[in-house]
Every structure is written in C-alpha cells, then in structure tokens.
C-alpha cells in the first residue's frame, strides 16, 4: 500500500510541491496510513458513525432517571389516586364478568380473594419507560405527542387486564399467582411497551419519510 501511495504521489499532476520534500511527505503519509488506528481513533470513529444512536440512548437514560425521580416524589399521590382509579377500573371489569368484586379505595376483594393495588401495580413505571423511549426517538414534537397520547391509555388498559387476570388466577389457581405476577406479567408489561413503541415508530413516524 505504501508503494502504491508513492506511485500516486509521483504521478499526481499539477502538484505544486515537487522534488524531495514532496516525496518525503508522500512516503510519510503512506507510512501513517499503513499504521493501525489507535484506540482513541477507533473510539472517535465509532462515536462519529453512531452519534445519533448514542444520543438517543443518552436522552432515553436521562428521561428514565427524571421520570423515576418524579414518580418517587409523587409516589403518595400515585399510591392513592392512580391506584384507586386502577382498582375501580378492574372492579368494573370483574363485575361485568359476573364476579361480585367490591372496591374499597385501592383494595379489590370478593368473598374468597382480595388484592391491594400499589404504585408498582398501576403501570406508571411501564408508562415512564414507554414515554422515555418516545421522547428519546428523533422525530417531530407532533409525532412524540401522538406517541404519548396513544401509548399512555393503552398501557393503562393492558394494566387493568393484568389486574383482572391476576385476580382470577388468585381466585381459581392460587399456586400460579406468584409466577403469573412476578414472572409472566412483568415480562408482558414491558413487552407491551416495546410493541407499542415499535408500532408507533413505524406507523406514525416513518410515514413522513416514505
């Protein structure tokens, strides 16, 4: 490669720098081109090539931490009002299906089973993850607003379905309640956020590019 570079230097037309100095510079450039890139150069090149993705991740992490802090500050409000709304919605659905469930504040109970809705059961943390992903994605404000307006009630609805299903599992299959609560529904909640985000990103954001 160094030899080829020398030939190119010799054959370069209209070169202002000629003679020994020019050739020495060509040789030096060729030798430098032959040296493997340093770690710093490789890192710089990686950052340059992936700067958009890196920015997305940094914004996402910032939003996650910020929303988590906001939720912590407002946790009492969430524990009372949002949990109560979730409990009422789930109680309504249970009664629609014929289960005589009563709701008292954040507690849903029937004759044989009861559960209390706390902040972790309201879906606000999954909403925070979804909202962070929407805010981090590089698109217009209007598209972000559509994402937030679409995703928040969808996640609330999925959470109500979760609460109702856990109530029935606790009522009829109590042995599976732990697995359903701490394994399957934890996975399904975050999966629903991922799928909603993918749907939003492809349906509402990329349409403009096409």
């Amino acid at each position: 490669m160094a030899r080829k570079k020398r030939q190119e230097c010799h054959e370069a037309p209209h070169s202002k720098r000629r003679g020994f100095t020019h050739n020495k510079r060509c040789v030096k450039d060729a030798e430098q081109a032959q040296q493997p890139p340093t770690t710093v150069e490789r890192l710089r090149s990686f950052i340059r090539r992936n700067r958009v993705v890196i920015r997305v991740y940094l914004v996402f992490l910032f939003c996650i931490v910020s929303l988590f802090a906001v939720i912590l500050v407002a946790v009492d409000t969430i524990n009372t009002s949002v949990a109560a709304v979730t409990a009422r919605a789930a109680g309504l659905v249970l009664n629609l299906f014929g289960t005589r469930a009563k709701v008292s504040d954040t507690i849903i109970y029937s004759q044989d089973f009861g559960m209390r809705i706390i902040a972790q059961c309201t879906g606000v943390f999954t909403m925070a993850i979804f909202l962070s992903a929407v805010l981090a994605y590089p698109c217009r404000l209007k598209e972000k607003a559509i994402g937030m307006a679409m995703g928040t009630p969808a996640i609330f609805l999925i959470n109500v379905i979760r609460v109702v299903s856990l109530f029935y599992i606790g009522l009829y299959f109590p042995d599976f309640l732990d697995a359903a609560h701490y394994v399957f529904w934890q996975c399904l909640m975050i999966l629903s956020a991922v799928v909603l985000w993918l749907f939003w990103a492809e349906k509402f954001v990329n349409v403009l590019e096409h």
Partner: protein
Amino acid sequence: MSLNTKLLVFITKILVLLVLIYPLWLAFTPLYNSFVAKVSNSFVSVTERASGIALRPEAHFIWIDESGTGPEAAMQGIDVNRVYFNLILLVALFLATPNLGLQRRLKLLFAGVAILFITHVVSVVVIAKYMYLSSLSKHHDIQGRILEQARRFLITMGFQLFPVLIWAMLTLKYWSFRAEENEDCQKNNT
C-alpha cells in the same frame, strides 16, 4: 407482510417462548443462582469490613449471613425469582427477533446473557447491602439512601428494562421492519 402482521408474529413467538422457557429456567435457576452468589460475594467482601456479610445461595434464595456465624443465624434472604425472571424475557426476545441467522443469533444471545449476568450481580449486591444496613438501622446515612433508591429503581423499572435495553443495543441494526419495507419499495419502483 404488513407491519401489524409482523408485530403479531413477533408477539406470538415471544409468548410461546416465554411458556416454553419458563420450566427450563426453573430447573436452571439454582445453578445460576450459585454462580451469581459466588461472584456477588467477592464484591460484597471487597466493599464491606471484615465483620460484614456473606451471601449463601440455596435453591431460589440467597441468604444474607453475617460473617462468622452459622446458617441458623441467617437474617434475611432475596427471592431470586424476582431478580432473574428477566433472563426468560431476554432469551425470548433474541430467539423471536426475525432475520438474524442462527450463528449471529447465538453470538448475540451469549453476549446479551453475559451483560445481563453483570446486572444480576450488581442487583444482588445492592439489595443485599441495603437489607444488611436496614437490619442495623443504618439505612438513613448517605450510603443507605443511595442503596435504597437504587433498590427501588431496580424493583420498579430496572429488572424489566435491562433485557429490553440489552436486546435493543445488540440487535438494533438487524431489525427487519424497515429493511423489508425498503426492499418492497425498490421492487415496486423497478
């Protein structure tokens, strides 16, 4: 294939995989738990004084023992099912991602599991140290407060978020939704 169909296929695959992987995960967890506890112990012993804590794995629990005392003196334990459950989700995500090819899929899965393992070690160390400080009523100092917030973050968001973040980081450039649509556009244009 339309976007809705692709997403439906993706969700269905993951649901089926979650059900299939769960019994394997139950069988595998005690062995994995021992390994995590061993690695976590080295970090705990580095950051605690000589009369600190030791982690003892037992099936699906990690007991927090005070160093120098026997198993009967175990104070508290961590139910590791609530920590390691995200391993199932991570594996399901990698197996369900379309257009990866077997070799690449396995390589990325291995890398993903390795990164998630690190998060499990960190989680166990954070939770164990917080529980230990709480038992000594020392959780109101700076270290205790930081550990408390870290523990809360892990329980409410972290355990769900890590597998998705790792999966997204490792497979982003292979996501097929855009690639296949672009191919369709080119075919229609020609």
